[in-house]
């Protein structure tokens, strides 16, 4: 069930990215919140191109509300952490996280 929800969120992110030809996705990481709270997910989207000239807060807001609409029929899904990163940002983030 969780995996289905993960795939659903990923698919919605691909749909979102299609709207912006300048965005070239490099990685999408969707995983259940480490807190264990049911049906709550963390989402990290990395782009090879297209994020560097788009304000982080603006692109995250855009993606967040897009996902809200796309996942409207899955009212119980929560996204409590959403990050959109350039590859450079992602590299630095991972160096500290993992």
């Amino acid at each position, binding site marked *: 069930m969780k995996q289905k929800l993960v795939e659903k969120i990923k698919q919605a992110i691909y749909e979102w990215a299609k709207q912006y030809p300048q965005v070239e996705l490099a990685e999408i990481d969707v995983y259940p919140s*480490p*807190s264990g709270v049911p049906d709550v997910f963390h989402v990290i989207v990395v782009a090879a191109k297209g994020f560097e000239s788009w304000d982080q807060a603006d692109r995250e807001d855009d993606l*967040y509300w897009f996902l809200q609409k796309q996942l409207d029929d899955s009212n119980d899904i*929560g996204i409590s952490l959403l*990050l959109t990163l350039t590859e450079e940002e992602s590299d*630095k*983030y991972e160096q500290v996280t993992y």
Partner: protein
Amino acid sequence: MATLESKLIKQDVATLHQAFQLQKREYDALRSAGEWAGAVLHAGVLLELALKIAICKHLDITRLPLAFKVHELDFLLYCSGLWNAFFNNKKLYRNFGIVQARWTMELRYQGAVITEKKSNEVHEALFDQSSGVLTFLSSFL
């Protein structure tokens, strides 16, 4: 046999309140000084403390069990009795996510550039009059 005492966090709710007030003063000072990264770090701690105080109130206890010695905001919100109130208010839940994302970045991405704009976004997410996370939580503290 372990005593109840040994299963509880040392700080009681009054201490959490004091810590919250101290963190809030430091948060304000950091923002006044233009120390945006420090302000965002404090913002996350403020939210964590507020949620822990809300949990004490929700459970009607003065000291939290050791299980709450965590920094996971999702978990703390879930246990605060306010999960549905947040989850059913899209703007409030979004603001919660903004604080969590910026705090996580600041904690886990050393060298992250926290600009004034990003700090202001977090500030708005916390203190917006209609749907700020701490504005909402203030009536539960």
